[in-house]
């Protein structure tokens, strides 16, 4: 069994390595100190098992897993964290195994056994991440853009368009594609910042300049950069509710 250890602290990786040494059938194929490294190493080594820290620079553990899943990689995961009550609750609720730093050899062996037994049977990373945020809205979206990983901070996101099973993210003059439905993304965004103005569009309210009405049923949102997006009747209703509520 091939395992990877992903943690930004040397000493934290050392503990996992040391515990794994007692399991000769598990081979540590790579140790990574951040999420981007982990993605590269996973492509190279095709691990079966990941020891994954949650708080790391650049990408957090959930985002690493999400990107690995987007590449079609299926592997067993043991989350390792020092303290994150919401994440723990999410793991418990979804029967995902985790280790709390610092941990005992017994606890480590138990987690390893459970990860082997469960394998890849676990909810998708986005679902875990949503549960771990415990109601807090999303702050950024990670997108695999060819060989590159893009992190889209939401204040830099103009609008989102549904395109079949994908969403097109418009950010800083670029289009990025991500495999996700508009509805599932809509559910994770802050309802007062991002508005579903149309069946196929979510708009960053910050970018809106005005709404123009051509005919009785046809409205368009005019954005700061001059872009025009269609606004449906339901979308217009949502905007009005927001304004009247404010």
């Amino acid at each position: 069994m091939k395992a990877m250890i992903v943690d930004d602290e040397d000493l934290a990786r050392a503990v996992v390595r040391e515990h794994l040494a007692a399991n000769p059938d598990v081979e540590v194929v790579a140790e990574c100190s951040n999420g981007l490294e982990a993605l590269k190493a996973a492509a190279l080594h095709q691990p079966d098992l990941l020891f994954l820290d949650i708080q790391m620079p650049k990408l957090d553990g959930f985002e690493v897993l999400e990107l690995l899943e987007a590449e079609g990689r299926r592997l067993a995961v043991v989350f390792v964290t020092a303290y994150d009550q919401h994440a723990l609750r999410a793991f418990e609720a979804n029967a995902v195994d985790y280790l709390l730093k610092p941990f005992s050899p017994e606890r480590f062996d138990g987690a390893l056994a459970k990860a082997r037994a469960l394998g890849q049977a676990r909810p998708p990373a986005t679902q875990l991440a949503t549960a771990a945020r415990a109601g807090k809205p999303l702050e950024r979206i990670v997108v695999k853009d060819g060989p590159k990983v893009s992190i889209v901070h939401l204040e830099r996101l103009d609008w989102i368009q549904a395109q079949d099973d994908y969403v097109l993210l418009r950010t800083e003059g670029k289009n990025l594609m991500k495999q996700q439905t508009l509805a599932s993304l809509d559910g994770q965004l802050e309802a007062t910042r991002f508005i579903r103005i149309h069946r196929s569009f979510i708009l960053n309210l910050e970018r809106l300049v005005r709404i123009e009405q051509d005919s009785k049923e046809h409205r368009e949102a005019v954005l700061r950069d001059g872009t025009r997006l269609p606004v449906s009747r339901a979308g217009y209703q949502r905007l009005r509710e927001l304004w009247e509520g404010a």
Partner: protein
Amino acid sequence: MHPLLASRARLGTYLLGWVPVTVMLAAMGRIQGWSWLEALALAVPLCLIAALLSLSAWFLCQALPLGNTTEGLGSHGIAWAMAASLMGGLWSGLAWSLARLGAWVPGLEALPDRVGKALPVLTGLGILLYLAALALHYLILAQERAAEAERKGADLQMLAQESELKALRAQLNPHFLFNSLNSLSALTSVDPARARQMCVLLSDFLRRSLGLGERKLVTLREELDLARAYLAIEQIRFGARLQVDWAITAATEPALLPTLLLQPLVENAIKHGIAVIPEGGTLGIATTLLDGHVVATVTNPTDPEAPAPQGLGLGLNQVRQRLLGRFGHRARFEATTEAGLHRVLLVFPLEVQP
């Protein structure tokens, strides 16, 4: 206690307010052809009595407080009208009695007759005066309530700050604690000597932070020592990723400042700076003395790709409030992000233990 009787200054001002009313009343008598003696003999005692009687409006105001809506104004209005009519009647009755008494004095023999003719006017005037007094008392009541609310608000804020501080003292960053224990757990087999060193550092930090919790003000030196203990532990955890650049001016060290003002800044610099950058960086702590003020800065590199944070976080805001709460306009707080460097600057007067 009646608010107008509570202080001599207020009572004096109130009675002074009645002087023009007295003059007006006397002038009215003169217009009707009364002599000066007659007009003043009636107006002066009558207005004095009215001034005292009108004080009773306070009790009506308290019994019938004004709400935020017009609801209940109808029943209030009836009570006001009844009280005002009663007072108007009482007042004109007193005027009549005064006139009767005055008739014994030479030169005032015509007074009962004159007052008798003026009774309807006097009653109406009494009603108006009482209504005016009522309005005045409602104003006073509203003002007293506002002042009380302000006082209560200030008290509450003091309490909130106190409890915030208590929470701050009790709060040991759990991330820091568990991550440190995890590093320790790794070191026990990798490097036992450093493991022991880490135990000592951790104890030192805990003891210092528990000790500081007892006090409101500490010297900058103590705060810096706490930061040193904290950063020594974080340097074991982060290894080469964390460099610390100290530039302390010795003369600033005895400066007194609110407890645990520096520590949140240092923790922030780790959490939002060093910890989010793969290669880490240098955390800078500097103090200098400028025109009798201590200038303290904490700097850390930031992730160049992440957008600059909007506004201050909760932690920085607390630091700002506590600094300004202690020194007011004599202190300054600034947080800026420029060219990938986040900098928090505190300026406060150099005050030392007497």
